[in-house]
Structure formats: C-alpha cells, structure tokens
C-alpha cells in the first residue's frame, strides 16, 4: 500500500443489488471477480467504479483485507459479522497475523470495520511479499471439484501463498494459471473464465523450473509445509505477533546455545535445516525466496518473508503448533 493515499472525501459506494456468497477459502479477489460475472457490467472499469467509486487496484484484494471495509456499504444489512467472517476466511489475515507486531492487528481490524482509513494498514501487508511466482495459482483437482460442487471454480487463498507448492488435500502440484499477477491490477479474471476444461487438462509444470528437483525430492516436506500454511490460515491469529515467534526463536537459540536469532549466518541456517536432509538446497531456496534481504552472509530474522518462518518452523518442529508449544 506504499504511496496509497486514502481519500476520505470520496463518496461511499452505493448498496449493491447482488453479491456472491463467498465460498470456503475463496480469495476476496475471487469474490469480486464473481461479482463482476454476476453484475453484467460491460467492462472492468464499470465494476470497479460500482464497487469502489473509482478504478482501484485489485492486487491487494488477493490476500490482504484491503477494501473489505466496503462490504458494509455493499450490503448494509449484514454489517460487521460478515466482514469479520470474510477477514478470517477469505483473506490471508490469519497468516499475516503471526508476523504482526503488537497493535497492528487491532489497526487492521479497525480499518476493516471502517473505524480507521486504509493508511493504518501495515506496509508489509502486500501480496508481493508472499507470492513471488507472479501468477494466479490453483490446484486442478480442487478446481474440478469446485465446478462439480458449486457449478464454477474459484481462486483459493492458499495456492496464492508463497511456498505452497503442493495441494495439502490432493497432494498434487499447484499450477500457475495463465494470468500474471500484474494483470490483476485493474482487471477481473474470474476463475470460471480462466480455468477452462482445456486449462485443467494441461499438464505443464507451472513452477520455476530451477527448484523442481527440490520439490520432487522433498515432496513430503513441501506437502507438510502446505499443510502448515493452511493450518496457519485458519489459526494464525491465535499465535499473533512477531514477539511470540521471536520468543520461540530465542528459546531454541538458548537450547542450542550457539545462535543469535536476531542475526543469523548462512552456515547457522544450514545447521538448523540439517534435519531436512538437503540443508544446502533448502538454504539456497531460502536465499532465493529472500533475495535482497541477505546481506554479508547474515539474515535478519525480522526481514525474512512470512512463509520462510513457516518453512523454518516445519524444518525445526514439524508443525507450527509444535513450534509455538516449545
């Protein structure tokens, strides 16, 4: 949200004549896309204008609760209960919560409830911080099941999250759709129009080829990682706050007696990840994921990407719950 200036003088949008009921685990962006499908509007601009009152960027609606505060204007009868539910089920708020510093979650909830402007959103809360793949992603089996169950597929929150390489339910690789993230800025790409039968039948490897050997070799680990991220998407708020995570890191540091968890060297990282069996590969992978944050062979724990923490949790303790229970 860097550079975004909330215009408080902007007229709130009018109530909508229809709005799709969000599906379980559906990304807020996907709900908006389905609204676009239902609205019958002639183009994307008309829908954005209807929803936001101006041609707003949609990128932030993929994972963050940006624009969720407008729900109360769209259907006044539902009020905060729906917003609260959507915050937890249709955004990555719970996952973000583990990274928040004290007070940030309250600010987020205030924004969503319309008590504060979007300027109060933490700046790190941006989809780019979690999805470097650069495409809308999906599990083909989930999409097929959604079509069968609901009549249409939708974009789920989980596959959009960084480091989710496998579907925790079907144990198959997550695919990139043909829709690059940069194109969702001002456009609606409903899954029903993208994930056609041909697209679902296509078996191309959609992830960065460079890391394929790691994903294949460590399939079980990455399935576990996806399960953990999925678990945090539902329960992350319980372990809210970076302080909690740091406390656990400190505990581990004291137990091992050799690490400074505030600043950690590449070698120390490899030592921690030695339990995974491919510590050097994992270390390179983390380095790749946190490109630009690695300086002079040192990682600053606060700067790590969100899902890198989950990867470390998985490597160290198997599950986030076990990690926090340490």
């Amino acid at each position, binding site marked *: 949200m860097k550079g975004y200036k909330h215009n408080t003088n902007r007229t709130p949008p*009018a109530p*909508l*004549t*229809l*709005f*799709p*009921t969000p599906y379980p685990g559906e990304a807020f962006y996907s709900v908006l896309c389905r609204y*676009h*499908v*239902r*609205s*019958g*509007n*002639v*183009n994307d601009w*008309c829908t954005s204008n209807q929803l936001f009152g101006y041609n707003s960027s949609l990128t932030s609606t993929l994972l963050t609760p940006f624009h969720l505060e407008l729900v109360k204007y*769209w*259907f006044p*009868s*539902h009020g905060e209960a*729906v917003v609260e539910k959507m915050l937890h089920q249709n955004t990555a708020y719970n996952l973000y919560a583990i990274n928040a510093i004290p007070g940030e979650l309250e600010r987020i909830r205030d924004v969503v409830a319309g008590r504060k402007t979007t300027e109060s959103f933490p700046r790190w809360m941006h989809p780019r911080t979690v999805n470097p793949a650069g495409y809308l992603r999906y599990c083909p089996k989930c999409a097929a099941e959604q*079509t*069968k*169950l*609901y*009549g*249409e597929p939708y974009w789920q929150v989980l596959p959009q999250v960084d480091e989710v390489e496998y579907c925790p339910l079907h144990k198959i690789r997550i695919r990139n759709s043909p829709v690059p993230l940069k194109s969702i800025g001002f456009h609606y790409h*409903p899954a*029903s*129009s993208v994930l056609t039968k041909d697209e679902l039948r296509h078996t191309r490897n959609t992830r960065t080829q460079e890391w394929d050997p790691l994903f294949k070799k460590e399939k079980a680990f990455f399935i576990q990682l996806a399960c953990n991220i999925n678990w945090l998407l539902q329960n992350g708020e319980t372990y809210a706050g970076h302080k909690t995570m740091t406390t656990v890191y400190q505990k581990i540091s004291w137990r091992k007696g050799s690490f400074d968890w505030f600043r950690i060297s590449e070698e120390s990282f490899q030592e921690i990840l030695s339990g995974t069996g491919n510590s050097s590969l994992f270390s390179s992978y983390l380095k790749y994921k946190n490109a630009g944050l690695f300086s002079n062979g040192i990682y600053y724990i606060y700067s790590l990407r969100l899902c890198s923490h989950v990867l470390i949790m998985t490597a160290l303790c198997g599950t986030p719950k076990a990690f926090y229970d340490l």
Partner: protein
Amino acid sequence: MTTMIHDAVYRDELLDEFRYNPLIEALPPPFEPGDAIAKLMIRPPYSDAERNAPSSYRQLLTQRIVRLHQPMEREVDVFGRIDRCIRWGYADRNPLSQVYAAQLAAGYNASVSGKGLNYVRGYHPHTYGFSILGISGIGKSTTVESILSLYPQVIRHTTYRGIPLVMHQVSWLKIDCSCDGSLKGLCMDFFRELDDLLGTSYSEQYSSRRATLDRMMIAMSRLCVSHNVGILIIDEIQNLCSAQKGVPERVLNFFVTLVNTIGVPVIMIGTPKALSILRNEFQQAKRGSGQGDALWERMPNDISWELFCKAIWTYQYTKERIPFTPGMKNALYEEAQGIPFLAVHIYKLVQEDAILSGAESFSEKDLHRIASEKMGLTKPMRDAMKAGKEVDLKQYIDIAPFSFGDYKDNYSIAAETKSPAVSPPKESTAQEAAIVTLMGLGLSHEAARSFVCMALAEDKSGCLAAPVIAQRAYQVYLAKPADEDAGDSSLTGLIGYEAVKEAGLIDEGL
C-alpha cells in the same frame, strides 16, 4: 430507484420442486380463483351524491369509468398461466444450485468471447411461455398488468435460512416491442427497465457505439439470470411486422434462446397482426403455446356484455339517472363492437357531453352521435366490424378476427373439418368465477352452477361481483334442505344468467 423493493419473507412450500428455492419461497402463495377475481377487480369509489356536484367536478369524475376493471373468465385463466410460468420457471433456476453459477459463468464467457450463449451441460429447463393475441382495446395489456401487480416486482434477498444470499429478484419485467420492431431497441428498453427497478446503469453502459447487438443480447440473457427475472413480457409484439426483413425471425429466435438456455418464460402480447410472424416459426409457436395460447376475440353481445355494461353503468354522473335498457346495451355494442376500451370511452364521452351541454341526460341516439363525432378515427374500423366484411377487416389487421385457418397455420394442427367447432354458450365471467369458487368448496359443477343461478335470480341489481355471487350462492346451498337435489331444478340445462332470465326471475329494470 423508483420501484418499491420488498424484503424477502420465505414461506414453506408444499411442492417438492419448489421447496428450498428462495426465489419461489419469497413469492406470495398461489391465489385461489375466487381470490384472484377479487384481487383483479378494480371498482373506483362511487356515490350518488356526487351527481349533485358542480359540473366541472363531475366532468373530472367521469374519468373514474376508465379505471374500472371487471375481471372476466379469460383473465382468471391468464392469471393461472402467468402464475404457473413464474413458479415453474424459477423451479429450474435455484440460486443455490450449481446450474445457476454455471449459467452465470457461461454467460460471462459468451460475453467475453463474443460467441453465442451455449447451453449449460445437463440443464434442460422445462419452461414455456405463452402468447396472448387479441384485438386492440380488448384489455390484454391491462389484464396482464393487473395480474402482475399482485406480485412484488422486486424482492430483496439478504439471508436465506442463515446463509448470506445477497441478490434482488425481479419477479416480472414487462417491455414494449419498439415501434420499429428493432432488437436493439428491445434490448435498450430492457436495460432501461432494469435500471428503473434496481438503480443500475446498464442502459448507459450499453448505449456506447461499441456495444454490438450480439453483446447486448448476451447481456440481456445474463441479466435475466443475475437479477432472477421470473417472467419476461413483451407487449406490442405486432410491431415486429414493421421491422426489416429477417429481424422478426431473429427476435423470435432470441426469445426461444432465452427460454431454452436461460429458462426464463417469455409471454408475448400482440394483436392478430402478430400472427403473420408467429405462424412462420413453429419453434416459437411451440414455445409460445407451452401454457396454451390465449386468443382473445371481441366480446359477443350476450350476457357477458350485459354484465360488463351494467358494471360501467353504475358510474353515472349526469343529474338525471339514465336507466340501463337493452336498447342502450345494443347501442353501446353497435358502436363499440364488443371492445371494452371503446365502450368505456363512448360511455364516458357521452356523459361528458351531457354535462357540458347542460342536458344532463343522454339517449341511445347520443351514444351513436358521440361515437360518430368524437371517435371518428376508429369509425372506419368499427364500420368494417359492423359490416363484418372480411376484405375490409384485413385492412385493419389489429382488429381482424382470428380464423380457424390462422389457428391451423400457427400450430400445425391437422384439421379434420374446415368449419370451426361450435363453441358452447358462455356463461358470464363473474358467474363462471363464482362457480369455480363453489367447486373449490366441494360442490359439483352442476350443483355449483345451479346455486349460482339461484343466487343471481334473487339479486335485483344484476351486477354483482363474483365473490358476492359465490357467497350468496353458498348461502343458498346451506339453506337448501339436504334431501333436495341441487341439480334438479327448472333451470337445469339452461345456461347461467340467461336461464334465470328466461325463467322470469330477473327484473330487467335497473
């Protein structure tokens, strides 16, 4: 938004096909025939004291005659058909079903790709519309509008059985076929109507030059699904005759697509002129008669005409009360040729003339004079109808009667004989409705008819509304000794009011 929006109140449905369908459960319960008549009847207020009001006021009061609506048998019939169309149309379009979402997605994809709307796999709506064709002024549109007004046009859904369900339901939407019969005009009228109802801006969005007709047609289909349009009524369908070559076929094909792929029943209303278009399209004829067709002829000069005339006769604002006589009835019929619209206006104009001239009275001659002087534009048509010359009537195709040949051509029915079947003598509308009401109470048709005749025989005014007739007839039934056979009366075998009259039980003086 100009229309009143009703918040959905869900009822438990009896039929399995309708249960757990919020669009049907939010509709009012089905009307019984007796209720339907009572609800369709419009009786403006009237007081004899108003006849003493200043002439300027009385001239204003004559307008009330135009507002009067006397429901007839065929209206009750159309009511039933429309109700069935709406409910069964929704039965295939449950917003909680997968098909609903699949339809929306298919509509969007069709819109993006610019290709036509495809069938959703496994979706076969069993929806049919019907056509109402009848001569101008016979009350087709008024009837349909009166029926539709009994349904909340826009229903707002917010939560259904604890599930958030944010949508609006447009239970009916009526548009007129544009004067030039163009499909673009029709689509734009549809968008404008939706905008008026829902406060949307579709007409603005689709008015740009880039909006092609194909896109508009797809959009119209999509919006029918999105906004849950229960039934689409296209009035003045005969305007298609003015369209360019090929357009009528395209329009009718589009309606068939709406019915087949979206499942929205389409009702077409028009004059006999529309037969020339409809007869060429068997597909349309099939879809247009799924609920049976409704071909409305002029009213015959029989008891139903008499009842209708008596109903309007109540509304008299001249200082002198002019009695209703057979002569008046016949004069009115002669000038109006069985068209209620013309009759009402002739009767209104003759009163206005009597008030304005200070005569405060009128006669049969005045009815003829006024019809001739003040309704000159329709005179050639009325003269043609009076003369019954088929050649002349063909010039005025809007008022031409339906022939057996028309029917045969339209619906490809192999006729065994060229002579039209002799229709049984009709009973008056109110009387028939009263009979239906009594049958609903468990009486046989013969018994119901007999009691209604008795009730009518007891009535001196001769212009009772159906619910009142039904009530009185039921009282007669209750008062009747149990051993007496209801069907065994001197009236048996005779028809309704006519029978009662023949039996000398009716006081002709009003």
